[in-house]
């Protein structure tokens, strides 16, 4: 339980695979996310015993059972809070948090935004399938208006959250998006999130083929990607399209998709993920307001700021340096005392 970080292990995918039978529906997008993770972990060099997956409840939240690490499957919505305690207590661990859009944004919304603003060193994966999978198909806080589900037979009326915007509004220091159809992209984004100091949140577009099949197909199916996904790359102009023919400009503060031919490459916005001001990241997040328009993927922002658990440890170290390690006899006599003989 010393707070030293070990990063020396040589492992393979198999080492990271637990002995538990995977219980998602055949065809579920969760499988490819799991694979991406099990492939990534050996590359990071971290030790399995130093890695913990914490989750709430939902299909997504079954994730920890399948990783051969420490795993804590908790209750609905509370994983960011529980993980906060673990990460504050144990800075030597790598704490991952996994949950669905209901778990993280509905019942768990408050814990999520507070974990983000505190910037606790957590790597949070939000599997967004825009539906409640485990409870068999009610709409979620990311479902589109008008969605007909078991709980909204006449269509939902709730404006959905944009998870990226929510995270930015909550002062998140690392925000990214990826999707379950592109293992390499997932792996790269997860790696970036894992390496970030502080709270990192990754929205993963995930297909629930049973209750919301094809929710992201218009964006993520192979032949749509070039036109519908806008890869964000640090230091590069934001461009996309099969021939890089489209791009993004900031037009009086608002991000807009334009034809590169119309505006010229120099007019394109050059992505700066390190910008301390989150305004541009927010503007980019608004591009994805409906699924018929192109959506940025990749790292929206990766800002270095005060990490919580480290700061807590530093306060403890300072207190111990200033006052010496705790001494019970001193504590007991810190109020006025008197002796009786």
């Amino acid at each position, binding site marked *: 339980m010393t707070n030293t970080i070990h990063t020396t292990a040589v492992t393979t995918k198999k080492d990271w695979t637990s002995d538990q039978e995977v219980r998602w529906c055949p065809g579920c997008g969760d499988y490819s996310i799991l694979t991406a993770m099990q492939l990534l972990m050996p590359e990071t060099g971290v030790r399995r015993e130093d890695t913990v997956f914490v989750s709430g409840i939902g299909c997504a939240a079954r994730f920890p059972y399948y990783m051969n690490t*420490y795993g*804590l499957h908790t*209750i609905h919505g509370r994983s960011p809070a529980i993980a906060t305690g*673990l990460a504050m207590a144990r800075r030597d661990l790598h704490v991952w948090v996994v949950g669905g859009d209901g778990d993280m944004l509905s019942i768990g919304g408050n814990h999520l935004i507070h974990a983000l603003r505190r910037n606790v060193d957590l790597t949070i994966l939000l599997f967004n399938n825009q539906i409640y999978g485990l409870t068999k198909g009610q709409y979620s806080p990311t479902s589109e208006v008008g969605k007909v589900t078991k709980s909204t037979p006449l269509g939902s009326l709730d404006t959905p959250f944009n998870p990226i915007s929510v995270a930015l509004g909550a002062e998140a220091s690392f925000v990214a998006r990826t999707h379950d159809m592109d293992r390499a992209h997932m792996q790269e984004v997860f790696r970036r999130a894992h390496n970030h100091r502080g709270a990192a949140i990754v929205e993963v577009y995930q297909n629930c083929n049973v209750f919301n099949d094809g929710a992201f197909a218009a964006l993520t199916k192979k032949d749509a990607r070039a036109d519908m996904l806008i890869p964000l790359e640090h230091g590069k102009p934001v461009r996309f399209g099969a021939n890089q023919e489209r791009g993004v400009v900031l037009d009086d503060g608002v991000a807009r998709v334009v034809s590169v031919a119309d505006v010229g490459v120099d007019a394109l916005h050059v992505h700066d993920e390190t910008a301390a001001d989150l305004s541009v990241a927010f503007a980019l997040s608004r591009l994805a307001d409906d699924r018929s328009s192109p959506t940025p993927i990749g790292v929206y922002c990766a800002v270095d700021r005060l990490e919580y658990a480290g700061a807590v440890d530093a306060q*403890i170290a300072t207190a111990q340096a200033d006052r010496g390690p705790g001494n019970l006899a001193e504590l007991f006599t810190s109020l006025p005392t008197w002796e*009786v003989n």
Partner: protein
Amino acid sequence: MIDTKEFLPDVREVERIIVRFAGDSGDGMQLTGDRFTSASALFGNDLATLPEFPAEIRAPAGTLAGVSAFQVHISDHDITTPGDAPNVLVTMNPAAMMAELPRLESGGTVIANSDAFNQRNLAKAGYQTNPLEDGSLDGYTLISAPMTDLTTQVCKDLGVKPRDAQRSKNFFALGLVSWLFSRPTYPTLQWIREKFAGKDAIIAANEAAFKAGHAFGETAELSASRLAVRPARFDPGTYTNINGNTALSWGLIAASQKADIPIFLGSYPITPASDILHELAKHKNFGVRTLQAEDEIAAIGAALGASYGGHLGVTTTSGPGLALKGETLGLAVSLELPLVVIDIQRGGPSTGLPTKTEAADLLMAHYGRHGEAPLPIVAANSPSDCFAAAFEAVRIAVRYRTPVILLSDGYLANGTEPWRLPQIADLPNISADFATSPNALNEDGEEVFWPYMRNNDLARPWAVPGTAGLMHRIGGIEKEDGTGNISYDPENHQRMVTIRDARIKKIADSYPPTTIEGDLDADLLVVSWGSTWGAITSAVGRMRRSGQKVARVHLTNIYPLPNDLGGILRGYQRVVVPEMNLGQLSKILRAEYLVDARPISKVEGQPFTAAELHHNLLEMNR
């Protein structure tokens, strides 16, 4: 240190005195009471205090809602309550008189700041005429002094602003009371100098006011006689005057040191529990981590997460917060991890009476979770006992790998009493006993780690992340006995429900035998828990001194109940249970032992007085 032999011979000696300081929130009554208490503690009296705050942060000056009071009971022998009816009431304004006079013993002494009894203040308090003048205090001993005026006068030449001078009038009152009860003056003078170091004008004003009050007593022709209370006979040792929340915090720190696992406190502010957060936050050098979480659910969640990581997870709250923690507590029961959940009870239901005391969360502590989710419950008896109760809660949590609920209440939290500092070496050891190696063989004969294997206590191993080879996954879904894997098997579920029940019941095997105090051969047995301890002790003492036979048992471990309790209860004809609720422990005793345990209820936001309990017990013994 004080020479406890020192004593003043020129005054009438009494066994004990109860003084109540009352004034506007802005009048500094808590501080005045506190100072009087400290001087008495240093002098060697036994004592007990009860501060009472208004519910508003700063209610309008001069109103009934703004009255703040502090009661202190000092004695030359062992006492257990802040006393029933005060002998002396200090009233700094008419509102305090209106609100507090009914409490004073008949014929008691009233000390009043006559300057404050002006037209405006009288009206605000609802007086038509001035009680200092209209004869309505006939039958009491009245000491009326123009405190504001006299204080302003003595400060005139000290370079103190008139407003600051006026503010010092509470020290005038303190000086007067100190004279009246023959308190030594130097501790107060010394304290003033330390407290206001650097603010010379304030020091001068407070000292002058204090001395003026003292002098007023000596020079004025007071109709009240000067009293003194001898030092009490204490066991030898070092003492400090401590309130319940501080004692509780220190108990946690001591247990954490003994167990060698750092405290992680997840908490959300709520009266009257917040001071534990404040206190623990001060002690980061003990490795204490504190998180002011976004709410009570996050607070217990973070504590549980820290426990999973091998820390001592603690969460502190009051009733509304405990109601919110129920679901996560259920998870903690299922995970079988150490966790200490502290409920400083206050008046309910709902927001209720947030600044008043009550003990009506007992049944919620037992049953406030879905499914069969048993956990141990410990309750503190007195302010200083909060130390021991916290220690006991940690002991159980760590040894038995279980969440524990520790109950205290608003009265214990803020009340104080002298506490003999324990010898650190005498504090029992607590062993975290983390798992370090596999504990089972799988079908292929390989060594594996099973998180739900159990030891003789039926406790499971605590294997913390970072430990090589013990990786495992656990959660709130029903687990297979032994392996901890998810299991939907019907018989396994029955087995696990039964084991969870049995392992908590087994904790009772670790208790010492239950002590019966008083007359073992009485017909009447008083059973109690929590902060009623003091008042019952007094009341039982009075009963017995007047020749009435009565036995009493006070419970610290409320769940599981002691193994020998059923036998004890069945040995008495009548069992009564005084409680600050409608009869919650009595319900449990009745169900458990089929004994006709009768509640004595009080739900007024105030502790029982010894007198009312004495009265009740007399009735029961007829």
